[in-house]
């Protein structure tokens, strides 16, 4: 068996293993991914949960459910995403992509980076 064939064989069998693992692993819940990312973001910006809730103009319980990833992705509407994006100083498209939604075109006004409201943004 040639070295080239052995290299090919190893690469293909590694791909078989990878595909098999992917087929059995549970896909990530997009709402949980968003919530955990927002927790990291708020942590970096030094914004506590109660302040996040206040800036978002929602009840603290609601903010907790959102950040813990327990609010279903279908319940996270685009206007809410845009407000969140403003608080964490990101383009709304980033949060849309994180939720597995289509990103808007670069020139779309609703994807413009908003002025920072974070106050502690580096």
């Amino acid at each position, binding site marked *: 068996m040639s070295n080239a064939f052995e290299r090919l064989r190893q690469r293909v069998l590694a791909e078989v293993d990878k595909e098999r693992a992917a087929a059995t692993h*549970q896909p990530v819940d997009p709402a949980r991914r968003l919530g955990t990312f927002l927790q*990291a973001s708020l942590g970096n910006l030094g914004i506590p949960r109660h302040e996040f809730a206040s800036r978002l103009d929602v009840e603290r319980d609601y903010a907790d459910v959102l950040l813990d990833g327990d609010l279903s992705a279908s319940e996270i509407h685009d206007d809410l995403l845009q407000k969140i994006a403003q608080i964490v100083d990101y*383009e709304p498209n980033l949060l849309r992509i*994180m939720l597995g939604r289509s990103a808007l075109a670069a020139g779309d006004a609703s994807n413009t980076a908003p002025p920072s409201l974070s106050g502690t943004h580096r």
Partner: protein
Amino acid sequence: MADEMLPQTGTRTDLTMAVDENWIALLRQLDSAAWDMLLRLYADELRRGIQASLTKRGMPLVLADDVEQETWLTAVRKIDSFRWESADKLFRWLRAISVNHVLAYQRWQHTELLTDETDDAEQEEHLERFYNLFNQNQRSVEDEIAWREQLAAIDRAMRELRPQEREILLRRLMGETPREIAAAFNLKARSVSTLLLRAKEKIEAHLLLGLLDAKEKDDV
């Protein structure tokens, strides 16, 4: 794994005769032994076909290795779409995949393509752990801690990037390939790969800083 269902030894003809619908089912189940046998059965002939296709189009034979690997990886990913009729049809299916890859290579400029392939491979290696954590749902406690540390590092790194660069990094973390991203942004795949490499370095730098901060806190 049903080893007894697989052809173990024999001539090329014996092996081909042993290829049947049950074997295809094992390939679909991503059974390593079944794929190993398929490689042993068809790799030589497929490679000769790829070389003939490259020669026919006046393309360099040095591309044969890349086309061959891409062909097999595509076969692994797309085996669900193959409808079994005969061993011959299975080989023709593999040939069709290889010709598609030859045509794709023909469409792109060879020099840039070869560079991009290298860069893609490097990205896969470097970003894989971030990608895995970003797309994995069930985690151990250790993974959960690593996941949160990495998300914090990704967030810090993203804040140092321009808006378009952030979106490119995120799309990659969500599973899009550099080529898909390049097409979406009308950029060269090589530019995307370079940007991703820079982003990866930023993430790792922030991960390291995070670990150092944690250590300082522990020491205090």
